[in-house]
């Protein structure tokens, strides 16, 4: 009996992959799924978690080389924020805490939606997962561990899952002309602040949708491809500045352009693997969560992933990306001139979250609102990571970090508040 207890405690409950699998198992059982579906769902979720870890190693290899060359070329530390890579790195250390925070955080979201006026059910499972990772990292670095951390973390996670949709809702009503759905993507603050600033300068009657953009820009919607292209450009610039000599030390004499091409695509490949893992984790958990939440909170509003707003203003999507990225580049130049840590614009945050800022800005201030709003968003997500780095402990010294505004805001706020009490 003793040994069974030991196995349960040490091998089952301390293994994040198993914990995540158990979360899916509970969801599948609660939905009264058929036996074969329960088995395959549990196995797939657990496998998804292990795939995520496999992708981490691939991205880190390329990122480290990028960081080394950046340091050599520019003499300062360069960080490329990408949720996917930091999450995959972080779960190797904080996996158990993350799994527990996520499982209980889903329950907390249902409780908040049931008993407060914020009736949002947050359905972007990947962001729930990333927020769980962030909270685990913030708490552990501040010295809060064990069950207090899990309970606090889960409550906070559930709270963010209703708070941020509530922040976005006034503008969501403008965008969708209804109050049925909410914005469930942790880039809300950046998009809302951008939209508020854009409103001062623009006129919402002058919509982006009267502009025509070339169709071939849509290739950027393909996440892995967009990462590959932008990282290639970044790698080429950094390698060129660092010089063939520095590249050769890393590449065993490979030509710097070929090296840049292969490293950029290796990074994109790693993100592709991580995304495949995340996809397998949430594919089983979210349908169960949605089914249960909608039963328990009858008048709930679903908070949905960011592409929910794209069809309302497809042109604003690209304007948003371009101007957010521009804001990122301008910020990068300023940081380099100040000799700070430099935040290199990550393509995913600027694309997806910049696009949101574009759509939000268009809803409040039309064409100018979209441009200025997205630019402001790009500046916000370039400066917030610097404030967060010091609060992440070991994780703050990687060449990547969290990238979307609400993760950054939450991390900074919780990190400082927890330190007050320690």
């Amino acid at each position, binding site marked *: 009996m003793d040994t069974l207890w030991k196995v349960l405690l040490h091998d089952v409950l301390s293994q994040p992959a198993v914990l995540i699998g158990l979360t899916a198992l509970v969801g599948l059982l609660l939905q009264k799924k058929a036996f074969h579906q329960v088995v395959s769902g549990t196995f797939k979720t657990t496998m998804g978690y292990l795939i995520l870890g496999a992708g981490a190693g691939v991205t880190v290899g390329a990122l480290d080389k990028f960081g080394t060359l950046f340091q050599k070329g520019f003499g300062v530390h360069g960080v490329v924020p990408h949720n996917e890579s930091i999450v995959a790195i972080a779960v190797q250390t904080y996996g158990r805490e993350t799994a527990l925070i996520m499982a209980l955080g889903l329950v907390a979201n249902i409780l908040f939606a049931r008993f407060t006026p914020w009736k949002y059910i947050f359905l972007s499972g990947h962001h729930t997962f990333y927020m769980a990772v962030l909270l685990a990292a913030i708490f552990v670095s501040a010295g809060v561990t064990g069950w207090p951390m899990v309970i606090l973390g889960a409550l906070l996670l559930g709270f963010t899952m209703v708070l941020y949709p509530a922040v976005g809702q006034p503008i969501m009503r403008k965008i969708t002309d209804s109050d049925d759905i909410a914005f469930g993507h942790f880039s809300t603050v950046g998009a809302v602040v951008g939209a508020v600033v854009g409103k001062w300068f623009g006129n919402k009657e002058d919509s982006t949708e009267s502009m025509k953009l070339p169709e*071939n820009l849509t290739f950027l919607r393909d996440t892995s491809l967009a990462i590959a292209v932008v990282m290639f450009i970044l790698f080429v610039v950094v390698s060129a500045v660092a010089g063939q000599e520095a590249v050769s030390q890393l590449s065993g004499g490979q030509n710097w352009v070929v090296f840049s091409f292969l490293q950029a695509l290796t990074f994109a490949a790693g993100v592709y693997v991580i995304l495949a893992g995340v996809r397998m984790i949430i594919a089983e958990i979210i349908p169960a969560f949605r089914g249960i939440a909608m039963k328990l909170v009858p008048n709930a509003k679903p908070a949905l992933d960011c592409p929910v707003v794209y069809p309302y203003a497809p042109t604003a999507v690209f304007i948003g990306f371009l101007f957010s990225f521009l804001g990122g580049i301008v910020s990068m130049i300023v940081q380099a001139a100040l000799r700070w840590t430099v935040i290199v614009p990550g393509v995913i945050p600027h694309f997806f979250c910049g696009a949101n800022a574009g759509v939000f800005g268009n809803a409040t201030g039309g064409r100018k609102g979209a441009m200025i709003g997205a630019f402001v968003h790009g500046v916000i997500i370039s400066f917030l990571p610097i404030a967060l780095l010091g609060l992440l402990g070991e994780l703050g010294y990687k060449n990547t970090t969290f990238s979307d505004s609400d993760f950054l805001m939450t991390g900074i706020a919780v990190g400082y508040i927890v330190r007050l009490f320690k």
Partner: protein
Amino acid sequence: MKKRILVVCGSGLGSSLLVEMNIAEAIGELGIDAEVSHADLASAKSLKPDIIVGTMDLFPQIKDKAPHVVALRSLFDKKEVKDKIANLFAPPGES
């Protein structure tokens, strides 16, 4: 032959999963024998679906990736999904 429906979005995470859940509901209600899954744009072509589904704004990216393409105006409108899927599976001459 079971028809294979694939829903795609940029990263294949949130939106495509949501539409997949709605399609699964719709084919259940319509009594259609098909299987539905979701993926990212990069993987879409290699999965060789019979029917590909995405939002309107992704149309240029999905139009050549499957014999049948469904472009949705909205991510969450269950009725639109159901009608478009029903149309696709209607016997010829009835739609």
